[in-house]
């Protein structure tokens, strides 16, 4: 089997983020901006883009982008199944596969979301999953679905609330120091976090990511071509998507030992096997958190800690740049940087490994991207600097 590392690299990134409901352009217009940003970042002619991949039921069919981009020939486009953010790394994996097999030479992985065009993300995600069993139970929102899993993680598995609080505090710490973040310049008030209004127990308001309008794009080309472009290439070392038996859209009947997880058991195993890396080899992590507890569950699933050690591992000083054992969500994450269905997470992974993060981790060579947790299909990826390939 040909290793994934060395096939493809991220050559450029672009993102446009606005307050929800305040986008200056409709969805496709913002997306075109973000794609052009990514091309300018890389010094790459947008007309040469020949492939596209997305996730989460994105409604911007790539063929409709061709006129604005000047696309000479569209040779490949694809989207990962699922309505949530579970497919975010999977879309990157599809791009790597397309490049490896010659189906495309320059792929944009994107996600665009403008409320006036696509409505509320939470409603769109649930429309993908909602059925009579859920309606009958009053279970209609992602916050509730994730809350029930989180409750069992706390009450049955004994994960301390302090672990989740530290995870949230780290995100806000980074966001407060990132000029592009919604939380920029705002000190995190732990008492305000603890007394914020309940959404669905155990989640209070600041446990929940809140949607932004905007679009993000990553330009992915062959590792060889990336070396000749403007920016240092950020290589894709490994990427996996999927679900283990006993996980999925199972009406809350997931296997007992997976129910309170974030669903990454099989994906994490694949990722470590592909790369030969272990959690100890990861310098920094972007951990998609739709809700706070799912981010911590994701760290557990990927093997950074377990139910016994999570309280010790997830301490604030361990989770922050520059010196934490595993700085997480160094731009602020979905909670504090902004939430365009998670596309900011791989973009921060790239910036971090180029040394451009607002909260740099000095000498970072590897960055984990853990995709949307708790989704029926989840995915993760590991990015690396040139010296890791």
């Amino acid at each position: 089997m040909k290793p994934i590392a060395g096939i493809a690299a991220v050559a450029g990134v672009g993102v446009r983020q606005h307050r929800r409901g305040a986008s200056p352009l409709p969805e496709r217009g913002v997306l075109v901006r973000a794609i052009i940003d990514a091309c300018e970042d890389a010094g790459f002619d947008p007309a040469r883009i020949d492939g596209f991949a997305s996730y989460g039921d994105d409604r911007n069919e790539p063929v409709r982008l061709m006129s604005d981009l000047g696309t000479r020939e569209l040779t490949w486009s694809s989207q990962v199944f699922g309505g949530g953010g579970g497919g975010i790394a999977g879309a990157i994996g599809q791009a790597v596969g397309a490049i490896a097999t010659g189906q495309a030479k320059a792929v944009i992985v994107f996600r665009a979301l403008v409320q006036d065009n696509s409505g509320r993300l939470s409603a769109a995600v649930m429309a993908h999953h909602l059925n009579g069993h859920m309606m009958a139970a009053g279970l209609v929102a992602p916050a509730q679905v994730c809350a029930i899993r989180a409750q069992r993680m706390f009450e049955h598995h004994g994960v301390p609330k302090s672990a989740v609080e530290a995870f949230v505090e780290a995100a806000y710490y980074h966001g407060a120091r990132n000029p592009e973040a919604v939380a920029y310049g705002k000190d995190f008030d732990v008492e305000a976090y603890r007394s914020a209004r309940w959404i669905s127990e155990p989640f209070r308001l600041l446990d929940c990511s809140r949607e932004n309008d905007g679009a993000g794009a990553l330009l992915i080309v062959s590792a060889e071509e990336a070396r000749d472009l403007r920016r240092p290439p950020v290589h894709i070392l490994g990427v996996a998507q999927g679900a283990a038996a006993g996980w999925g859209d199972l009406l809350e009947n997931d296997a007992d030992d997976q129910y309170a997880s974030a669903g990454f058991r099989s994906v994490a195993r694949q990722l470590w096997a592909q790369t030969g890396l272990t959690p100890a080899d990861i310098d920094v992590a972007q951990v998609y958190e739709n809700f706070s507890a799912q981010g911590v569950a994701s760290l557990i699933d990927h093997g950074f800690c377990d139910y016994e050690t999570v309280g010790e591992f997830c301490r604030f000083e361990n989770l922050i740049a520059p010196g934490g054992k595993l700085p997480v969500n160094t731009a602020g994450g979905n909670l504090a940087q902004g939430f365009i269905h998670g596309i900011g997470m791989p973009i921060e992974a790239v910036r971090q490994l180029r040394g451009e993060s607002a909260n740099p981790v000095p000498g970072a060579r590897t960055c984990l991207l853990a995709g949307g947790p708790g989704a029926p299909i989840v995915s993760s990826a590991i990015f690396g600097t040139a010296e890791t390939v």
Partner: protein
Amino acid sequence: MSSAGEIWSTGADGPYWDGLADGRLMLPRCSGCGHWHWPAVWRCAACGSWDHEWQQIEPAGQVYSWTRNWHPFGGLESLQLPFVIGVVSLEAAGGARLMGLVEEAAGPVKIGAPVTGTFTTTVHAGRPVPAIHWRTT
């Protein structure tokens, strides 16, 4: 498939909805190997059988997990806030779990709490959906 099944079904679970309409909890068991399948399946992946016996189960179980909902999510205007949503495991059906609203009749809900169910409807987005409502005992 019944009319209820056509409206609410996720696929192979039509008899579940028929049962609720008749005031009975019906769950499927593989005719080939006896495995309880929930969500319902057409084919038993354990033994390859395509035949299932739908058996009547007493609506009694234990809370597997829960959330107390405080936010006015759309479609649930008929429910008074806060309300508790539970996942209830049914020993009598091989541990199959059902979701449902839980009334805290015997103290605050917690994992492991015994509950019993009654057959009713939940109004979602103005439409009554057949439901089991649970209460702690």
